[in-house]
């Protein structure tokens, strides 16, 4: 059995007095599309951001392809910070797509996608732009390469953001509510790109309210509520009746978002 892409062990995260994550244990196998669903405040985005080390966990460990990210922790709970450069190397295996796209406004689409290739992989501008262009073709936006983010629609911006993350050839892609900021008619173009990515075998962890996507593309659904994993399994098991009562409650509010197809 190969190493899990991401292994989360006993992850606890507190913000001041509030505990958001109460000891999460989770494994993401290689090549799996894993969806984190749950009500607002359940901690799913926090969990994802901990996996990316954008939030520092209070205790517990996160391992990416066997290497511990952020902090090592002994059995006695002694935590030691990993060096910034080591962290950067581990993080290089992860690509992240944000709810707010986070494209850099002073660079064109091509500039956004090629920036890391130039700065991190030290490619020449020509080489970087060639590779970046290939990524833009992949998400269907080669005609917009010279446009600035302010000139792109939300769906286009998000697709550029995906291309930017993919340009660095990550082994794992994290998606933090990628379509939540989009008008309904624009979500489709982004979900299609994600569908194609999944079909190519990319390991993906997706936090999303798009239950339909989770049910059809997801290979494992993890339902989070109040900072704990309530249920985790393949879509057929998670969505079949009789359901976990909390999950039932949660799905009731999402029936018109595509979960009805599962009934």
């Amino acid at each position, binding site marked *: 059995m190969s190493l899990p892409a991401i292994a989360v062990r006993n992850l606890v995260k507190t913000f001041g007095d509030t505990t958001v994550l109460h000891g999460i244990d989770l494994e993401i196998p290689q090549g799996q599309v894993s969806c984190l669903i749950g009500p607002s405040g359940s901690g799913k985005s926090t969990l994802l951001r901990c996996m990316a080390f954008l939030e520092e966990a209070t205790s517990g460990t996160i391992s990416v392809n066997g290497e511990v990210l952020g902090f090592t922790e002994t059995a006695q709970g002694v935590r030691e910070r990993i060096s910034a450069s080591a962290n950067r190397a581990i993080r290089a295996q992860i690509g*992240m797509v944000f709810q707010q796209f986070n494209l*850099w406004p002073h660079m064109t689409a091509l500039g956004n996608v090629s920036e890391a290739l130039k*700065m991190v992989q030290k490619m020449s501008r020509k080489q970087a732009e060639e590779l970046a262009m290939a990524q833009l073709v992949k998400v269907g936006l080669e005609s917009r390469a010279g446009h600035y983010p*302010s000139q792109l629609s939300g769906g286009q911006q998000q697709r550029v953001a995906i291309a930017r993350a993919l340009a660095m050839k990550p082994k794992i892609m994290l998606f933090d509510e990628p379509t939540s900021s989009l008008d309904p008619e624009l979500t489709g173009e982004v979900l299609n790109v994600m569908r194609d990515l999944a079909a190519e075998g990319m390991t993906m962890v997706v936090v999303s309210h798009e239950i339909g996507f989770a049910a059809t593309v997801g290979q494992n659904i993890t339902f989070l509520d109040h900072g704990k994993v309530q249920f985790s399994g393949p879509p057929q098991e998670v969505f079949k009746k009789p359901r976990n009562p909390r999950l039932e409650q949660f799905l009731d509010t999402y029936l018109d978002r595509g979960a009805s197809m599962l009934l």
Partner: protein
Amino acid sequence: MSLKLFELLLQASIYTVTISVVSILIGFSIAIMLSGMLLSKTPIFVLPAQIFISFFRGVPLLVQLLLIYNLLPAIGLNVPSIVAAIAGMSLCTAAYQAENLRGGFASVPVGLIESAEMVGLTPDQIFRRIKAPIALRLTFPALVNEAILILKASSLVSVVGIIELTRMAQDLAGSTFLPLQIFAAAGLIYLVINWIVALAGGLIERSLPGVPR
């Protein structure tokens, strides 16, 4: 009011513009240094910068000019009054511009930094390629505003003996007994200069990609 008088006012306004431009440029350089000190987070740099900014924003420009004009000879530096004037204005605008820059840096959306981290940029690269360019764009309107404020504030260097627009207006008003016309004309010249600066600022802002509208 005769054309000759207006000509004299215009000539004096060249001093106004020159002193202002020089002060703004020197002030901006100092402001960048101050911002660097503030961002460094090490107390030995942050504290002096904070004190500097607090002092030069808290004390009226007129008092600053008088202080420098009288202080420099007292410590043995006998400089021409125009140097004292520019020094005073530069230090004052540096404090305000540093404050503006600080605001600009604070307004850079965190997400833009996070996405840079995720794609592998080092902190130094993030600062150079993402944070600083965006902060400058966010600060730009405030900097244009500050330029206009400096142009108006330059009227105060008349007290340290520089014959710029306001001083010329004072002299002419005194000798021609036509204060209403002279000061109104001077006011008009200031208005036109400020209007041009605002216009230029707006044009530059529109041509810069990535300035939030």
